[in-house]
């Protein structure tokens, strides 16, 4: 059991990383549908694997000055409060309903993952919050550093609260929604959006983890092989991403994940999970 869970988690980490969806959102349906693990225990194990992969990946991005640490920490106020609310809600929602929400979120994330990155022309920050909190920064591009501004911080924070709530409710990283908030709404460079999202995910998940631990959603016997599988899988995926042409692969994975999402949705709706 433990070795099979480990292998499945490795694959989930790899696929999650290659698609940009994150390991957690892939490992939960795998555990629940294939291994018939209780949904809440699967979410607890996933949440810990999310902390591991995001912290591991963020270390490199922060060192290289790509993540915007000030912006990340400022937005973490919204994501952690959201995570607390979401984690608290898991106790009030029936398992079937959780699975339905999970399926819907996974399906939209799979569709979102097929989007191409768009570039925003650099412009100084707009809005009083972005200016007074000095959120504008630079990121490295080859030898030079590119300046960028931050926009619509209020709306971004609102979305971050939702991302945090989904993270706490479902035991996932909610990276896809965080990137939407930063890339589309706050108009950050794509590279900064993804790396700052990674930087924030660990703290967001930690805010849910406290509640999960109290509730007994984290079983060491399950979480240990899941963490040990997802972490190296995700790291390998990140390495492969920089070398492979991944567009056809992403389409294939998005389709598989879409099917998993539909099955979660269906089983949840018919009370079979």
């Amino acid at each position, binding site marked *: *059991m*433990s070795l099979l869970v480990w292998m499945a988690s490795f694959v989930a980490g790899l696929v999650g990383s290659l698609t940009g969806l994150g390991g957690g959102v892939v490992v939960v349906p795998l555990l629940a549908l294939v*291994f*018939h*693990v*209780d949904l*809440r*225990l*699967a979410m607890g194990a996933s949440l*810990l694997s999310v*902390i*591991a992969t995001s*912290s*591991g990946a*963020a*270390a*490199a991005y*922060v*060192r290289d*000055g790509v993540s915007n*640490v*000030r912006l990340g*920490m*400022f937005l*973490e*106020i919204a994501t*952690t*409060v959201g*995570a*607390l609310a979401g*984690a*608290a809600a898991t106790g009030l929602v029936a398992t079937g309903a959780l699975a339905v929400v999970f399926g819907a979120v996974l399906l939209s994330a799979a569709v979102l993952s097929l989007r191409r990155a768009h570039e925003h022309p650099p412009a100084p920050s707009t809005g009083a919050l972005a200016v007074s*909190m000095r959120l504008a920064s630079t990121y490295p591009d080859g030898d030079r550093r590119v300046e960028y501004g931050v926009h619509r911080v209020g709306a971004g924070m609102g979305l971050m609260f939702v991302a945090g709530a989904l993270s706490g409710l479902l035991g996932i990283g909610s990276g896809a929604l965080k990137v939407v908030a930063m890339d589309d709404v706050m108009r950050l460079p794509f590279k900064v959006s993804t790396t700052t999202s990674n930087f924030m995910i*660990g*703290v967001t*998940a*930690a*805010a*849910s*983890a*406290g*509640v999960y*631990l*109290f*509730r*007994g959603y*984290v*079983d*060491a*016997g*399950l*979480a*240990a*092989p899941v*963490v*040990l599988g997802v*972490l190296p899988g995700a790291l390998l995926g990140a390495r492969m991403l920089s070398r492979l042409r991944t567009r056809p692969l992403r389409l294939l994975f998005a389709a598989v994940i879409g099917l998993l999402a539909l099955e979660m949705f269906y089983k949840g709706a018919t009370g079979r999970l």
Partner: protein
Amino acid sequence: MRPWTDERMDHLIAGLLRTGVLLAAALVLAGEVVHLLRHGGDLADFSVFRVAPWQTHGVVGLAREALAGRGQGLALLGLLVLVATPVARVALAAFAFAAERDWIYVLVALVVLGVLAFSFFGGRA
């Protein structure tokens, strides 16, 4: 003494995250290996959610259990180190912002730390 800059803070935070994850992974791996050697043939069943005996103890009780080596002590300790890593990262950032005399961001970091503390010690809601 070297001056406190954003770059120095970035390096410290990166080092902390890397160390935390590596240490956690090593502990969990060691715990798993020991467990497999002892109980390799057992079939665990996670299909039914049962309330673990330590549920009401929260983090403090878990840490006590891990240190006592009960259950899957080492793996549990590793998982706790993992959860503590982002918390330590926020605390370190609060300290670094204070050294930079960036008081607004000290406040931001402390608010986040407060939410985390509520989750770990008050978050039974």
